[in-house]
């Protein structure tokens, strides 16, 4: 009878099998997340092309007609990036084992910073009928009150965008993305804590508030 054969070997066999299955699972998981990242990268590339196009146009402003095209294109880009942010957010939540989606978030933050700078530029050069609403939040916060406030701010701003449509350029930006350009841009506002909403570079709204109250800040 061989009942008690290979007693110790079975522990090693199980370990080997576990390692194989576990590593296989991790590789499949990483592949799955890579697929999501590729999707986000495609969105990003499209937005980047659109932005470069607008940026080039911004350099060549010489008439009201060009201004109109510029404002419309800028608005379209801002809306695209805003919509893509929702997709990115969902994918980021689902990205557990690779860091690629977090890097994509930083790239988007850089693009959004550019967008803000460009929008300031446009509003200086053209007399457009639009408002700029920049939502500054913390990406990596562990503070539960801040997390809750940010959740509510997102809802309020989403509703504001729904209500005002093309009248506002809405730019959400993570302040802890380590972007020098953003840090310099924010210096003038002397903000000590986040989240905040900056409207037309004039008003800094620190407390979460209703859509109606926010509309009062808009010209």
């Amino acid at each position, binding site marked *: 009878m061989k009942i008690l054969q290979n007693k110790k070997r*079975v522990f090693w066999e199980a370990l080997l*099998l*576990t390692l194989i299955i576990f590593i296989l*699972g991790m590789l499949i998981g990483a592949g799955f997340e890579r697929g999501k990242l590729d999707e986000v990268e495609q969105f990003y590339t499209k937005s980047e092309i659109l932005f470069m196009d607008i940026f080039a146009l911004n350099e060549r402003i010489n008439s009201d007609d060009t201004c109109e095209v510029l404002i419309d294109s800028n608005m379209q880009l801002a809306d695209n990036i805003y919509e893509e942010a929702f997709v990115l957010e969902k994918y980021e*939540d*689902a990205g*557990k*084992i690779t860091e690629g989606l977090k890097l994509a978030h930083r790239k988007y933050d850089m693009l959004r910073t550019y967008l803000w700078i460009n929008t300031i530029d446009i509003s200086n050069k053209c007399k457009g009928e639009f408002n700029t609403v920049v939502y500054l939040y913390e990406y990596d916060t562990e503070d539960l009150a801040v997390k*809750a406030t940010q*959740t509510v701010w997102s809802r309020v701003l989403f509703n504001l965008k729904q209500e005002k449509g093309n009248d506002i350029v809405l730019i959400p930006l993570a302040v802890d993305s380590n972007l020098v350009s953003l840090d310099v841009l924010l210096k003038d506002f002397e903000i000590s804590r986040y989240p905040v909403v900056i409207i037309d570079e004039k008003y800094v709204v620190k407390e979460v508030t209703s859509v109606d109250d926010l509309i009062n800040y808009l010209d």
Partner: protein
Amino acid sequence: MDLITIVFLVYTFIALYFFFLFLLIYLQNKENFFYYPKAKKQYSLSIVVPCYNEEEDIGGTIESLLNVGYKGLKKIIVVDDCSTDNSFKIMQEYARRYSKVMAVQTPKNTGNAAGAKNYGAKFVKTELIGFTDADSYPDKGSVNKMVGFFNDLQVGAVTSTVLVKNRNKFIEKLQSIEYKVIKFSRKLLEFIDSIYVTPGPLAVYRRKAFDSVGRFDEENLTEDIEIVWNLQMHNWKIKMCVPSRVYSVAPSKIKVWLSQRNRWNMGGLQTIFKYRKHALRGKGMLGTFILPFFVLSWLLGLFGISILVYRLLRELIVHYLSTRYSIGAQTAILTLREINLTPHVLVFLGITLFLFGLLFTLIALSNVKEKQYKRIGPLTLGFYLIFYLLAYPIILIISLTKFLKRKRTW
């Protein structure tokens, strides 16, 4: 990778490891799963039945033992631990009618099963000594199948398949699944010399081994675990006879069930503490596998539930605060946009583990054929796998709290 993901992956790895370990043991020993050796001689046996307030079942248990069909059974010693009901009268009645039955009473209530068992053991003169709980019903032929294992002089104890007798209420049905899974796992552990308990419903010991380890520890709440660790420490082999069945009455009320689980857990803790010095020492499986396995189960259970509670609390606080702020900002407290149904790798791993758990449970269930009972329905099985098993770590916390407060009552 965040901390929660790392924790989840570590748990997944450990769960996968034990799944594959058990699966491989099963596949490598499948042919010997129901094996039991034929006894080379007729070993003399006495069976001790500890009893405390079991007037409803004690008669049935004695009847089962009388009809167990083992010719070497010399005495059935029924020990009344100063019951306050009619248990002792019933025993005495059986003792009058059957010469094999001996009814004794402890001088005073010992307060635990170990005390009554040890008291009964004093009257045993046979080569083997068996124990049956007063609410358990060994099948005819069950003992005959067990005794052959004692042909090997190193075998100190033989345990059996314990199944649930009462299966009407939902909680009883859940326990009937659990008992089958436990029985299946215990047999698998036998193949790596790692049986850690000889449950009370039916176990037979070599009296020499039983006496040599000082009988049951009366301080321990799970004397049937403690004695096995003691036997393992003294290099006695423990065997399990799968075809030998005993049907036991399982708790029908949550409160009783909870109290039973607390006793098991606290007894387990007492045993861990008693044998802690043997961890990762010696050649036997007690220090190298059983003890670390027990400690790991405790640590994983407690840490897992702590992480779960911490996460839930955080979510609750964020939800509460965001609801409050939402009301202030006159906005919706939840929007469809926020519902994220994007699957991620941890969900896939969780599903994989669940399916492995289901597979393991199904293999365990398929190893017990019972014509007299209805098959387990998918709803009961699903509830068992999702909710019943989830209750384990919660009970661990209750048990640990009681243990630390030294509320060790039987």
